[in-house]
């Protein structure tokens, strides 16, 4: 696919899927990571992949960036199968590797000069605007920079590349709160202003809440939830109810990870409060007080995936 074809692809419609993965299955040795995983990312959306350690977030990023061949299934970016993608198309995919990895042996100036040769649409000023904020000399070697500074170099290079799709693996790793906020604000502003598509992962859920439009929450071996973040936060509720001490929990469908501490039962659910009340009465749960509250993304994530 040439750049003109890419433009045609991008102009087909605003809800065109930039990323489309179908039936992904992967194992490390005999350990199943996930089976029959399918998802898509429409144009102009920021999608966050959330999951505990070992659920396959980095595996998915590696498959998407073409550095891991899944045991089964296929992934398409801009309509092309990743493993056999036209090299020219990679100029429209900005890749951030976990830990903001960049060529350590280069200086700020050298790395810009190097990358600029590969990208016809290179925006040098976008990179240097960010570098000027760091107040580091152009001759500063990347290996001698802090993790926060390196994250800005990596981000600056992606902004200068000006790709249609950004794939960011654990962008908050090693960053202090200031640099995390800087990264999130810059990225959010850039993606919205330029209608970019972003696929990202992070361990820091609070950062995701400020940044993403849609989320995929992964559990071991499968996708637990995939929906817009606003819908998720509007619908998911934390329910607490008082039950007699030592009460044995019944099997509760539609309730995620119910936990009992002394006489307080806590569970998360997408069901509305009146529906929950009906269910509890049907199951003859001897509760006295039922509280329902909205939660932030981090609480929703922990509630839906469990603490263990």
């Amino acid at each position, binding site marked *: 696919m040439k750049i003109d074809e890419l433009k045609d692809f991008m102009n087909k419609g605003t809800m065109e899927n930039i990323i489309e993965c179908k039936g992904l299955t992967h194992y490390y040795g005999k350990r199943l990571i996930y089976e029959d995983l399918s998802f898509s990312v429409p144009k102009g959306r920021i999608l966050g992949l959330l999951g505990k350690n070992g659920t396959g977030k980095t595996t998915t990023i*590696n498959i998407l*960036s*073409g*550095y*891991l*061949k899944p045991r089964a299934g296929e992934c398409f970016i801009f309509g092309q199968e990743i493993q056999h993608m036209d*090299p*020219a*198309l*990679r*100029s429209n*995919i900005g*890749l951030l*590797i976990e*830990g903001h*990895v*960049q*060529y*350590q*042996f*280069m200086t700020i100036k*050298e790395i810009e*000069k*190097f990358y600029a*040769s*590969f*990208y016809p649409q290179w925006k040098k000023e976008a990179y240097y605007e960010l570098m000027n904020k760091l107040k580091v000399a152009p001759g500063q070697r990347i290996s001698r920079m802090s993790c926060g500074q390196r994250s800005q170099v990596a981000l600056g290079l992606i902004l200068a590349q000006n790709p249609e799709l950004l794939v960011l693996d654990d962008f908050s790793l090693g960053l202090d709160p200031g640099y995390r906020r800087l990264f999130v604000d810059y990225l959010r502003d850039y993606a919205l202003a330029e209608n970019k598509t972003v696929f990202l992962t992070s361990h820091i859920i609070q950062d995701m809440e400020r940044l993403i439009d849609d989320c995929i929450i992964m559990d071991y071996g499968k996708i637990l939830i995939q929906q817009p973040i606003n819908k998720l936060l509007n619908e998911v509720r934390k329910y607490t109810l008082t039950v007699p001490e030592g009460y044995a929990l019944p099997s509760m469908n539609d309730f995620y990870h119910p936990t009992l501490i002394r006489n307080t039962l806590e569970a998360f659910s997408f069901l509305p409060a009146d529906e929950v009340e009906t269910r509890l009465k049907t199951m003859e749960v001897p509760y006295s007080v039922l509280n329902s509250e909205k939660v932030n993304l981090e609480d929703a994530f922990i509630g839906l995936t469990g603490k263990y």
Partner: protein
Amino acid sequence: MFKAIFYKEWIKTRWYLLLAVATTLGFAGYSMLRISRVVDLKGAEHVWEVMLSRDVIFIDLLEYIPLLVGMLLAVVQFVPEMQRKCLKLTLHLPYSQLRMVGAMLLYGLLVLSFCFAANFFLMALYLHGVIAAELEQHILLTAVPWYLAGITAYLLVSWICLEPTWKRRIINLTMSVLLLRIFFLSVTPEAYNQFLPWLLIYTLLTASLSWLSVSRFKVGKQD
């Protein structure tokens, strides 16, 4: 694109190259000084005599230097690519991955050839004024397999460095030692003369091995 790729490789290797050129020229120059001292003490005829009757070539000090220089160049060039999987950045660039790897190896081959050519130039320049052309050729032809070993070592160590798993790296290392042994089977001067064209083809064939490692890296092989 070649210019940009060469630029990156130059940044990685420039200080090492300076050291490599200085070291190899130092050893070659020292070998020439040894000949010069014998000439000064016992005359040029004595040099000719020992070369013809006792198979002395005076540059035996150089035997393993090109090998070491080639191996270290591969380490200096490709270990930074494998640190924290930087190679992902290189392969993600909008350029054919096969050509990218080819260009990186071509850079290494060119600078290594330049370094080795400087050695031959220095030796030829000195020997030309001291001994007969046949004897000069005798010394230089004896050294050719050692320098070819240096180039092969560069290509084989690149193959090892680019390999993503340690288990396979050890296998590759073992195979490389055996493949390099071929260059050092005989200590007789000019023993490889008839074999040199085949040795050159053998050297060039090892260039393809690095792509095997990169292909394994691309499909996500790991320990």
